[in-house]
């Protein structure tokens, strides 16, 4: 764990920025929203989720054993289970357990 004041600063910044984003339409945009912002609002969420998936793999090595196999297999598991049942809790919990088994047992 990093030190307390740095932790508090990160939490405070996250909280303030989150609140600012939620409040800003009521403060700024009640007379209309600029078109570039409207455009970004439609396309950015999709791009960001792709970014976050890659972000989660930032420390996975694909050039040394096991070549990202646990991550890729568990992601495949999540995609299949989610396409099958469309149940978020099942997909997240199942995928996590699958990954834990892969790193603790299969690729240990």
């Amino acid at each position, binding site marked *: 764990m990093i030190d307390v004041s740095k932790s508090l600063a990160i939490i405070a910044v996250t909280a303030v920025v989150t609140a600012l984003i939620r409040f800003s339409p009521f403060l700024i945009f009640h007379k209309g929203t600029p078109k570039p912002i409207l455009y970004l609002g439609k396309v*950015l969420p999709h*791009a960001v989720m792709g970014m976050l998936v890659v972000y989660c793999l930032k420390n996975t090595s694909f050039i040394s054993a096991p070549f990202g196999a646990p991550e890729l297999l568990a992601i495949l598991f999540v995609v299949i289970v989610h396409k099958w049942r469309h149940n978020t809790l099942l997909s997240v919990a199942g995928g996590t357990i699958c990954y834990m088994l892969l790193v603790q047992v299969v690729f240990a």
Partner: protein
Amino acid sequence: MEERQQGTTTRAKNTVKQAFIASLPVMAGYIVLGMGFGILLQDKGYTWPWALLMGVTIYAGSMQYVAVDLLAAGASLISVVLMTVMVQIRHLFYGITLLKKYEKAGKFKPYMIFGLTDETYSLVSRPELPENVDEYKYYFYLTMMNHSYWIIGDVLGVIVGSSFAFNSAGVDFAMTALFVVIFVEQWESAKSHLPAITGIVITAICRLLFDADTFLIPSMIGITVALFLEKRQLEKVLPAEDEAGEAVAEAKTAEAITEAETAGTVPEDTAQKDTAASSMKMTAEEGVTHD
């Protein structure tokens, strides 16, 4: 006088009751996803008051998962700001569609805006209000109930995670799994896959060019630039520019249904109402994944 008072009490009680009923689908989702967050947080060495603090003050699902990572890495505050903006920018649009609805919410308004998560948005943006409830109090209670489920889940996660001795290696994958789930759902509903592909490709390229601690900021800049370069192509497939977007469409459907009902035209409208109800249910369920 007495009668009127009684009426007010029943109405107040009914408002709480209806809000509670409407919040139930969110309860399970928030407690479980909150626990996932709590388990991740305690895995990085944080105790339950930290989870409580974050659940109360940040109150944003996927962002709190990301924040665990930022905390673990001791990220710079500028990258915290950028990351929060990128992850939370969608909330801007919830506010835009609720400008009118929340206009006269009075003293409840600041908290209702603060607590505008994906799930809460999906519930308050339903076109129909239950009968015999105070509108703004109903939205206020809904917001508060969802917030409390999230806080309970966060704290429970830390307690459960730290009191059962288990090999936690790999538990971080909960975050990846959550993002993959949202990615799949967005992919299925997207009119164009270009933004999703752009996000993956640019981030992957930046990870190759930069190291694990610094690649995110170039990725964000690259994605924003690329999306503007793709604007002409994307705007051909995106729905026309409309400020209030879906909320307007939804409200119109509801109006049409109500009008049709009053007019007394039965069979077709019942079918229409069922579709509207099930699509609303879907919105609520979908909501559970997004935050």
